Every structure is written in structure tokens, then in C-alpha cells.
């Protein structure tokens, strides 16, 4: 197992290198010049050149890349071109907000998807199954940002109440802090829950038709034991794989949800940075997201062995 994890970590290095090249070059390929953006509509020739040199953007791209890579290896993600604040410091402050949102929404997704998926599989083709599958399709097809907008706007119009949209730090009020994540996390988790519910139902149905399950039924075991103890663990392997992918998806969606609910996470940071062509920030945030996704997939792979002891690394 240890060797497997080490091997996977080594394989992750070239992945991260390729990702670093992409996150470095893509923002620079976007049309638009950060220096002209910084000087706005009154940009004049010499000022442009001076500022470009000051920011180190006048050097060839490959030199900038190698230098940035060296910095990253030393644990330094550079400074924001606009605020001159260290990117790592900004990320450290914002990442917990995004992670909190992501973890909560993933928890909601799991809590919703597993029991509903199991119930739908066990009661296949019943009314309950039909309703749950319909809800899942609805959850997949209705965009989360639309639900979020309605959840924010309609209570305000009807009752003059809106969910909290001003961020409260944990140190100020733990309950208010936790409370402000509930609604966005729940809505963000709906799509993931829908996808996972359908997968859970499908894979569980497949497992339930296998011989060893039929044997378990024949032995007279109770339904709960057959389903939970003998079937569910095997059915969960593809679900866990999808869970890894959902992390990436949820992290991507935080950009919109953090904007709607006023949460100062990395999503908003990235959104602003793209608009401002703040290259070090775009690179830093994307590299972080890539690293989290690589790490999550590694954890997911390692988790297979727990779910199915036949899997050996």
C-alpha cells in the first residue's frame, strides 16, 4: 500500500508539472494586457513600458515560467500584480472558506444520495423509486445558480427576509459562521447528490442481482443485512470514484456560489483575478485546485482497498 501511494505521488509530479505549464500559459494567451488594464484608459507609452518592466512581464515567457516554477518549489506563489500581497497568504486566508463550503456540500450530497439511492434500488419501479428518480433528474438539470438566486430573492420579496450574505468569521460567531454555509452548501450539493443517487441505485441494482446476494437471501438473512452488509460496500466503488470527480466539480462551482452568498473564498478570488489578468493569482489558485483534485483522487484510490479487500496494490 505504501509503495502504491509513493508510486502515485511520483506519478502526480509530472501531472502537476503539465498542469503548471497550462495554468501558467493559458492566462497569458487570453487577449488583454494586464499593464494596460492597470493603467486603465489613460495609458501612455513610457508608463506602460516602465510598469511592464517593474512587474517583470517584459521578459520572455519561458524565463518567467522557469522563475515561477522555482518560486513554487520554494513554497512561494508570488505576489498579486495589483495589491502586491503574497498569493500564498491570500490563499491561506481564503481556502478554508472554500473547503468548508465544498466539504459541507459534499456531506449534504452523500447524506442525501446514499439513502435515497439505496431506497430507490430496493424499491425498484415503485412509486417511491419513480419520484426519487424524477427528483434526481430535476436536480441534475436545474442549474444550481438559478436555485440559489431564487432562494435568495423570493423570501426577500415575500417576507422581507434574506439569507445572510455578509460573511461572519468563525471567531466572531461560530453559529452564524456555520449557518451562512448551510443554504449554499445544500444547493451546491443537490447536483452532486442527484448524480450520486442515480449511480448508487444503478450499481446497487447490479450487485443485488449477483449470485452471492441471492445466496444471502436464500440463507434467510434480513433485508437490511443483505443490502447494507453484503451489497452496499461493493456497490459503492464506482460511487467513490465519482466522489473524487465531484470534488473538482464542486470546487469549480464555488466561483458562482461564493459570489451569490458573499463568501470570501478562492472562487471569488479567482473570478476577480481573471478579470484583472492577475497572473500570479490565477496560477496560484489553479495550481491549488489541481493539487487538491490530484490528492482527492489519490485518497479515493486508496479507499478502494477499504471497500473491497480483494483489491491489492
Amino acid at each position, binding site marked *: 500500500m505504501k509503495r502504491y501511494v509513493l508510486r502515485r505521488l511520483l506519478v502526480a509530479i509530472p501531472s502537476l508539472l503539465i498542469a503548471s505549464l497550462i495554468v501558467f500559459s493559458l492566462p497569458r494567451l*487570453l487577449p488583454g494586457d494586464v499593464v*494596460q488594464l492597470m493603467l*486603465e484608459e489613460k*495609458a501612455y507609452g513610457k508608463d506602460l513600458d516602465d510598469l511592464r518592466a517593474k512587474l517583470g512581464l517584459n521578459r520572455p515567457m519561458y524565463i518567467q515560467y522557469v522563475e515561477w516554477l522555482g518560486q513554487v518549489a520554494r513554497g512561494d506563489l508570488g505576489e498579486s500584480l495589483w495589491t502586491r500581497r503574497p498569493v500564498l497568504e491570500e490563499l491561506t486566508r481564503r481556502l478554508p472558506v472554500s473547503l468548508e463550503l465544498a466539504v459541507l456540500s459534499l456531506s449534504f450530497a452523500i447524506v442525501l444520495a446514499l439513502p435515497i439511492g439505496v431506497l430507490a434500488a430496493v424499491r425498484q419501479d415503485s412509486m417511491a423509486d419513480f419520484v426519487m428518480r424524477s427528483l434526481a433528474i430535476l436536480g441534475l438539470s436545474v442549474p444550481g445558480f438559478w436555485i440559489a438566486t431564487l432562494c435568495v*430573492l423570493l423570501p426577500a420579496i415575500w417576507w422581507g427576509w434574506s439569507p445572510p450574505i455578509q460573511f461572519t468569521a468563525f471567531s466572531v460567531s461560530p453559529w452564524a459562521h456555520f449557518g451562512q454555509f448551510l443554504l449554499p452548501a445544500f444547493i451546491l450539493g443537490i447536483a452532486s447528490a442527484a448524480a450520486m443517487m442515480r449511480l448508487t441505485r444503478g450499481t446497487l441494482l447490479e450487485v443485488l442481482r449477483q449470485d452471492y446476494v441471492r445466496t444471502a437471501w436464500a440463507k434467510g438473512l434480513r433485508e437490511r443485512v443483505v443490502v447494507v452488509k453484503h451489497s452496499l460496500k461493493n456497490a459503492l466503488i464506482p460511487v467513490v470514484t465519482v466522489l473524487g470527480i465531484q470534488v473538482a466539480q464542486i470546487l469549480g462551482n464555488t466561483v458562482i456560489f461564493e459570489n451569490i452568498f458573499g463568501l470570501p473564498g478562492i472562487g471569488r478570488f479567482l473570478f476577480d483575478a481573471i478579470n*484583472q489578468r492577475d497572473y500570479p493569482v490565477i496560477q496560484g489558485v489553479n495550481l491549488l485546485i489541481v493539487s487538491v483534485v490530484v490528492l482527492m483522487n489519490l485518497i479515493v484510490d486508496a479507499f478502494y482497498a477499504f471497500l473491497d479487500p480483494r483489491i491489492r496494490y
Partner: protein
Amino acid sequence: MDQPASSLSRRDLLKLGGTALAVGSAASLGSPQPALAQTPKRGGTFRLRSHVAPLHFDPHQTIAFSTMIPLSFAYSRLVKVKGGSAVVPGTQPVENDLAESWERQGDTVYVFKLKKGVRWHNKPPVNGRELTAEDVRYTYERFLTIKGNPNRTVLGMVDKVEAPDKYTVKFTLSEPNAWFIDRLASTTTWIVARECVEQFGDLKKPESVVGTGPWMLQRYEPNVRISFARHPNYFVAGLPHADGVEITLSPDPAAGFAAFLSGEYDFGPEYGMVVRRSDLDVAQSRIKGLGTRDYIVLFGGYTSMKIDQEPFKDVRVRRAFAMAQDWHEVLETNAWSMGKGAPNPLIPATLKEWSIPIGQLPAEGRALYEFDPKAAKKLLAEAGHPNGIKVPIETTPGYGPDWMDAVQVALRNWKEAGIEGDLKLKEYGAFVTSAVFGKFDKMILTLRGLTTDPDNYFVQFMPGEPLNSSGVNDPKLTEMIKLQRRTFDEKKRRDIVWDIQRYVSQTVYYGYGPSVSAVGAWMPYVKNFGPNIGHDYGGRLMVAWLDK
């Protein structure tokens, strides 16, 4: 068109409504509100929303309103635009701020006497010392010499700034400029402290925001909120009335409106403290006694064309484009205005003292504002395009969906006149760093309206200026622009400014779209507040109070 505050009397209503209906009429909304007769109350915190966080806090490194609005609470200028419910939106009456008095000596020298006993905020590294003329001199020296100050042209006419004694500042201009005092009242000319620049290297960090303004920056939480606390030693006795100001940084417009409805903000949640007109009914039914006032915004679309190239070399083609654009329809399809607004000549209509009424333009100029696709078609035929023309048109969706609606209206209108617009959408960052500087193929549709100073709108006609995107080089026009700058008599200057607008309505170097009439909105317990154009939120709120 203009709608008064809900607390106005019927007589006030008639007075306001009748005169304000005429686009560009100036003296309509000046009647003071009853709030002025009340005794101001001390205390409370103003709560506002900003949809965008400040880039940083250095006023000499950006023109962003997201920076200038927070700074308006903490800094002062030599002169400022008056605030209060009696001020007519769109007018910019200038009054003394740090200046006790000022006088012009000859055409190019201005001498300012400073108020005595003005204290900086009691924060390190300035620690509440007295403001002196040297601070003012230092500020303007930095303003004019620091690399990359995009606001430099605001005071580009200044040759020398001196501080002959502790309370006297002397400006020497390189050439006469009658707009100098208006320029000093702009929201870029905040007086900053040398100690802050020396300690922090620049003024970008929130810790470096130490001013002499009515409130002190207390706390900045990036992407969350900006909090200000009352400056206890503010140099105007009794002001400000409110103990604090809190700006919530919330980018989503729906969330902003929801929070306004639920009473979390004291002012309209959109830029300019307004609500969308399409949201007004809901807001008024939910918030009883909501204070509102209509005003024409500065922002408006404009068209820039390569006038040295075909087909725009021919003024008839340029005229045809303008005549085939229905400004009424643009306003009708806009959620902010829902049909209410004003057509713009060169100077935006909201700058009522300087913008020429459309009716005062020559016949050719007036015709540009009367949607007439048939006449436009005829003009195109006369210019050698009997079968119409196809033109690439560049713009950006980055200005938002309302803007794109206006673009679609323009394209459809043009089609009626035989003009096929080949729309090329550019990403916002790319567009604002290239197209507005003239880097486009044939034509762009874009927005203007960052500045409240009428003279700034002439920059687009000056040869060699980066913002002269149409490539205008008209010696007669250049001379007229320079002449108005040299004319100190306000009436004579206005005559020249109107003549310039008449002239460019005939040459059509640029086309101008309308500006919407926005609805400034505030909670019923906010008193003596008057919305206005520009970023000076601090100036407006300093004289307002909360009567809860």
C-alpha cells in the same frame, strides 16, 4: 421624468416634475426636502453595498470607482462638490473643503488659504498631527510625478505647486484653464500623508489610508466589508452625523437587492445608490416610505468609427448610422430605465449646466435623434451604398446583459436602414485595453461616463490623445476646445461649449447613445440625503443622518 423624494409636498412635486421633464433642464430638483428643517441626529451606522471590492487604496494608481468610493469617506480635498438633499442631481456645486478661501491671480496662478487646526486621523504613522500646506504640496507633487498615475491628466495643466507658508498653497498652471477648480474637486485629488507613503512604500494597503476626512478606515476584510468609524477631530464642527459607515462587498445583484429588501442596507444596492426601475414596485411595496429620486446617470453608450477609412470617411454614412439608431427603444428595453432617460449630445445630458439641449442643436444635429431608417437609407444611397453596407462592429459583453440588450437594439435598428452589423464580441479585458484606444477594425460600440468634468469629454477630439479612438484631427474643433479652456467667464464658456456640441453634431465623429434615468433610493429614516452622479459617497453621507 424626475421623481422627487417621497417626503416632498405636492407643490414640490409639481415644481420638480414639470421642469424635470425637459431633458437637460437644470433647475428642477433643487427644492430642499423637509429633512433640512429637522434637527440632525447623531449616531448610527450607514450600511451600503458595493458590488466590487477596491483594487487597492492608492488614489494615484487607479481610476477605479471601487477605490475612490471608500476613499471618499476617509480623505479630504481642497474643494469638494456639495452634498445634501438640496443639491440637484447632475449639478456639481463646488464648495471649500480643506481650503478656507482661494483666489486666482492672473490667468495661471491660484492661491489657496488652508483651514487652520485640521487634524489627520489619529492613526500611525501620522498620529493626528495638524495638516499643513506642505502636505498639500507633497500630495500634488506625487500626483503629477508618480509613474503610472492614470489620473495625471486631471491636473495635467499644473506646472508648479508651492507652499510659501504653513497655510498657503500656490498653484502655477502652464496655461490658463478655467476648469482647474472643478478638476480639484474631482474624486481623485485626495490629500494624502507623506508619512504613509514613506512607511508603506505606496498607498495600496488599507493601513495606509490615513486622511483628514469625516470617517476613519477602521477595518478592511477583503471581499467581505469595509468599516469606517467617525473621525472625532473632523474639522467641520458637528459633522459627520453618523458614527460609522459599513460597506458590504457583495457582487451578486440579486443577493444585493434581497438584502436591501430585508433592511440590511440603507441605500439602493446598485452603483450610485440606486435600484433598478424594474425592481422599484417591489421595493416600494416592501419598504413603506422608501425615499426615491430619479436622476440621469453619466453612463451612456457611444460609437467610435475609423473616420479616415471607408465607409466612415463620408459624413453621410456616419450620419446614417446615428439616424438609424432609436434611443427611445434602447431606454424602453433597459431594466434600469424602463423607457425613462435622456438622449445625449457630446456632453452627457446629466451635466445639465453644460450639456446642450437637443432642441438647441442645428437641424442636421437634431435629425440624428429622430429615428428615421428611411432617411438613413437615402443618405447611404447618396454616399454610394444604394444596397446598404456590411460593417464589422466590435463590443464586449463584459459591460453586462443590459448593455448587450442595447447593442442588439442598435443592430436591429441599423438593419432597417440597410446596415448589416457583423458583431464581433471581445472579452472585456481585451476590449478595454485595445478598442477604446483605437485598436479596432472599423467601428466599436462602447460605454463612457467616468468623469463629472465636462471638459474631459473633449479629450476624444484632441489629436494625439490615446482616447481619440476615431482619429479626429480637426484644427477648428481643437481651437474651439482650447478656447473654452481659456475662457473664465462661465456664460461665455458655456456658449463655446454649446457651439462645440453643435459643431460635432454635424461632423458626427462619434455617435452617442442615451443615458438611463436611474432611481436613487434610501430608507425612510435616512435624512438630508441627495443622490448625485460621481463617486463622492462620503461627501453626500457626511451631511446626512439616521433618524431611527
